[in-house]
Every structure is written in structure tokens, then in C-alpha cells.
């Protein structure tokens, strides 16, 4: 979605090699950002290793179809690797004999990391461009019992995974986290801050301070870290539509201006 790219200061053919981006939402729904990045990278023919922990494949497929990307086609052409984390972790609590014991071990995320690493390297072999890893969403891991330290280490391992030898060989890492109402859930806030510390760009989608509004769904704050430029922070308001998102400066919504 072009508008999202403009807000994030990403050009249409930007590679984002070696970038670590943290997406978060607090009181509004920010998952449109995940679909934006999915369609953006797949549209640019970058291979994507998508780890989905909170929604089923069908949901992602439908949304991406609206944005013009066919996920099944990308899987067939080895551009996309879809890891159904929801099923893997959920099934552990359903079956008496879980299949992927390594991956869904309660205390350690090592098995999970190894599975992602295999997928990443597999994509790397099959494609020229370095892959992108998108994780949606980290707070599912926190909710089912993994410790903040463990998840934070997991993200650090992923950061290491995407950094290759040359500038052109570095992948991209995008993680999504739902932090709930700001400050209320300490552990989630702690996890968010530690993941943001490892990232280049931090995007936070939150609701309006004055409450719910049908026409202005929330505000988005983009912070670029490790930059010495003056404008490293941007805040705008947005409204989500069926196939796109409209952004506008605070208070400039068409509904408000009339």
C-alpha cells in the first residue's frame, strides 16, 4: 500500500537490507502493517519467511488477495514460506501426543528458532535476494508462557540470522507485538522495549486519546533509530479502508474538516 510506504519513508523499490523493524499496536488494531509488508516484499520479489502465530493461513491469504498478492502462488514458486505457528503451538495443548515436540517445547524457543532458520536458509538457496522474516505476533509467545528473556533472545538470534556477510546479502526482520494499553501489562511493555532496542525502525499504532471514533481509527508513530537526522519521528492519524489505509495529519481527517 503506497500510503503506508510514504508514512514509513520507504521508497517503492527500497530493499531494506539488514533492517530490523518493530511494529506494535496498543489500543487500536495495527495488523494492517503486517499485510502491507507482506504484499510489499512479495510484490518486489523478495522471498519471505512468514511466521504466523495469531491467525490462520486463510485470513492472510484473503487479505493479501485484496492487496493484489496471491500467497498460494508465492508458496508454489518458493518465494514464500508460511510457518503455521498457530497450529503448532495450539496443537500442543490439544493432543496428548504432540507431533512437533521440539518446536513447541515450553521453556525454550530453540527448536522454534531452528525451524525458522531451516526455512530461511532454504529460501536463501532457492532465491537470489536475501529473505525477509516476518513474525506475527510475539505476544502470543508471551501469553502462552515463554519468558521475556527467552523471547528477547529469540529475536536477537533472528537479528543475527538475517545479517549476512556483504551489504547485499543481509535479510530483513519484521516483528509484530501487541502491547495492550500502554503501561498496563508490564511484561509485554518490557518485551517491546527490549525488541525496539534491537531495531532500526519502531512503529506504534495506538488509539486516539479521546476515545473511539468511526472516522479516525487511530494514530501511528514512526521512529527511526540510529539516525542523526533531525526528523527521526513522525506522527499521523489514519483510517483503514477495505483495500487501503488513509493517512492524514492530526486533526485533518476529512470527516472532521467537513
Amino acid at each position, binding site marked *: 500500500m503506497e500510503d503506508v510506504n510514504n508514512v514509513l519513508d520507504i521508497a517503492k523499490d527500497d530493499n531494506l537490507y539488514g533492517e530490523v523493524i518493530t511494529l506494535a499496536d496498543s489500543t487500536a*488494531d495495527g495488523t494492517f502493517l503486517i499485510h502491507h509488508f507482506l504484499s510489499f516484499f512479495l510484490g518486489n520479489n523478495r522471498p519471505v519467511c512468514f511466521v504466523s502465530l495469531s491467525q490462520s493461513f*486463510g485470513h492472510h491469504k484473503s487479505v493479501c488477495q485484496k492487496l493484489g498478492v496471491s500467497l498460494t502462488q508465492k508458496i508454489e514458486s518458493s518465494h514464500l514460506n508460511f510457518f503455521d505457528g498457530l497450529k503448532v503451538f495450539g496443537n500442543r495443548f490439544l493432543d496428548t501426543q504432540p507431533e512437533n515436540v521440539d518446536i513447541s517445547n515450553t521453556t525454550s524457543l530453540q527448536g522454534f528458532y531452528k525451524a525458522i532458520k531451516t526455512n530461511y536458509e532454504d529460501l536463501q538457496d532457492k532465491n537470489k535476494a536475501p529473505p525477509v522474516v516476518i513474525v506475527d505476533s510475539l505476544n502470543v509467545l508471551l501469553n502462552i508462557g515463554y519468558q521475556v528473556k527467552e523471547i528477547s533472545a529469540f529475536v536477537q538470534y533472528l537479528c543475527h540470522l538475517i545479517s549476512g556477510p556483504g551489504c547485499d546479502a543481509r535479510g530483513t526482520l519484521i516483528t509484530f507485538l501487541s502491547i495492550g494499553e500502554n503501561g498496563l*501489562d508490564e511484561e509485554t511493555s518490557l518485551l517491546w522495549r527490549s525488541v525496539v532496542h534491537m531495531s532500526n525502525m519502531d512503529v506504534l499504532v495506538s488509539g486516539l486519546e479521546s*476515545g473511539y471514533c468511526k472516522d479516525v481509527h487511530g494514530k501511528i508513530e514512526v521512529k527511526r533509530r540510529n539516525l542523526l537526522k533531525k526528523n527521526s519521528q513522525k506522527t499521523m492519524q489514519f483510517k483503514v479502508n477495505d483495500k487501503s489505509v488513509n493517512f492524514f495529519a492530526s486533526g485533518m481527517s476529512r470527516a472532521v474538516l467537513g
Partner: protein
Amino acid sequence: MFTFFNCSMATTSFQKKARVKINQIPGTKPSLFNNQLLISSGVPSLDNIIGGGLAVGTVCLIEEDVYGSYSRLLLKYFSAEAAMTGHSLLLASADQDPQLIVKELPGPILDDPGDVTKGNTPEQSENMKIAWRYQHLPASQAGHSSSKFGHYYDLTKVMEPQLISSVNPALVGIEELERECKECKDLNPKYKYLLKRIKEEIDRGHFSTTEQTDKRSILRIAVHSLGSPLWDECGGLASNQEDLDYSLPRFLLALRVLMRSAFAVCMITIPTHLFQIPGYVGRLRKMCDTVLHMDSFAGSDKEKNPAFKEYHGLFNIVQLPRLNSLLCHMPDTLDFAFKLRRKKFTIEKLHLPPELSETANRNQEDPLPHLHPSTALCSTTKPNKLDF
């Protein structure tokens, strides 16, 4: 307006539901704005505010009012709707005997009171001139031959036992839970058993989306007061009173996996006022799809507040699911109120009465002081700068 597609093997219940012939599943309708298959919650006014109904394949969480009576009422409506549409029902409750709950389901309000005697008596055909084209069609009846979406119920009547038994509900009560639950280190044993029962019911009734069957129906799963102390839940705390007990989020994750691949809808009520760990309820909300919050006035000083004279409690939409689209249903407002008359239970936008009596003490404070629910849509707990 709706075109018909051929039925195809769906791997998850989130395949565009338009693939199934729309009139094949009674009691369902496609959502007007994203083609998601919806069922009625049993309360038509609730269906209207959440975007048409509950989406098939999702979990609806109702945060209970303090005494639990109104949330139990919502569950009863949800279960009664199963009888009216021919859907199957699984009802679980640890606090009350599910047999009792089922016996107390409200009776449906029939469309035409004169329909109990079938056939056109000569009187009727004189008094009511019905278009000749429709004269030979049977008058509408109660029961699952009715394909209407959403029914009204009369709380002064009880549903007929034959109608209830036609549904053949699966009931899970406290004795079964205590007897059958097995030791488990990942998860509270009772939750694990409930998951097992739900899975069994889905398999037995062929509700899984991977199975091809001729007569598709929907499984309604109603869980009453999950997370109450009778489920061995200690407000989210583990037995050592210090660590968190992750059983409930784990249960909800596994439940989501089950729901996403079944033609089923799950409605759970949780007494969230018992969970005092900050942020814990927020986590539970994220693990469910639709989240609604009820707050009854009974026993609080709001009962005497003249602004709330007509209503019995407040009703808030905390979260609506985003399914198969970028956008979730965005209602005009998230704050509603509900009222319970003899026959009808309605949820509507909170209308303040036009005139408060002159002698009434006009409270300077906001009548909704603590009610800033954290929503996945938008709001925060910061004081409203627009308050004068």
C-alpha cells in the same frame, strides 16, 4: 445480490464462505461487507451492533457482570437459537448444572399467534386476504424449519422440552469435569478435558472444514463462567500465588485452532472481575475474537442514577474481529446499554432521558467514570479532555 458458488473443500473455515451454497446452512447468512459467514447470537439487537452476527469459526468472549445473571442470559439466548435453527449445541458449566440451564431456555415468540392451528379455517380466509400465490404455502412455524435469522424470545415462557431434545445438546457439568479430567502439566486439567470434549463433538458431528458432508450445520459451543474458581482457576495465578498460570491463554489458543478449522462458534463468559493481575485480561482479550463487556447496575449506586432509569446495565464492545479483510466492522459507538423487559432483552445506544427531574441531584461526575474499557479499536484511560 448474492451469487451462488459450488461447495468446495475448505481447509480452514476462513475460506471465503461464499463458496458454500448460501442457502445450504440454515440459520446463517453472509456478512454484508466481507462475505464472512455469520450466525445469530440469539439477540437480534446484539447482532445489529456487532455487524450482523457472530462469524463462524470465531470465539466470542463475554466479560461477565458482577453477579453473572445477564451474561448467563446471553448464553441462554445463544443456546436457544440453536433449537430454532437446527444447529447443534455443546453447553459446559461448572457453576451450574447444565441440565438446569437447558431446562430454563426461553421460549420463542412465534410470528403469528394464530398459527398454532395449522391450515386455513374458513374464518381466516375471509378475514385475511393473502395473495393467491402464497395461499398454499404453510404458515410459519417455530422450530428449525424456520430459516429466519435471529429470533425473539419470551422470558416468561420456557422452551418446550421436545424442541430442546430435537437439538440433542451435549452437556458438560462439574461432575463430568471432575471425574474425567486427567493430570496435565501444561494446562489446567479441566480446560484440557473441555478441549477434548469440544474436539470430540466437532469430529462426531462432522463440523470440521476438511470433511465433506451433505448436510452442513453449525456447532454452537457455550461455555458458562470459564475461569471461575470451580474450574480450579485462581484469578490467573499459579498455585504458588506468585507465578502466572498460563492455562487460560493456552486454552484460548488451542480453542482458536479448533474453531478456525470447524463450522462452529464458541461463546464463553468469563468473570473477568476476578482477574486482578494488571494486563492479564488484556491478554485474554487478544486471544479471543469478539469481546463484549457487561456491567449491570444491580447493587451499585448507578441503580439510583436517573440517567439510567430505563436500563439495567451497560454493554460495551471491547473488540471486534478482523477477519479476511484489512478492516473490522466499525460501529458508530462502542458504548451501549441493555434493558430487560418481561419478554425482550435489548441492547441499544444509551439514550439519556430527555428531562431529569428538577429535584434529582445532578451528579457533577461523569456517570461512566471507570468505564473506559481498553479496546482494540480505540480508547485510553486518560481523562477526557473534553469534560467540562
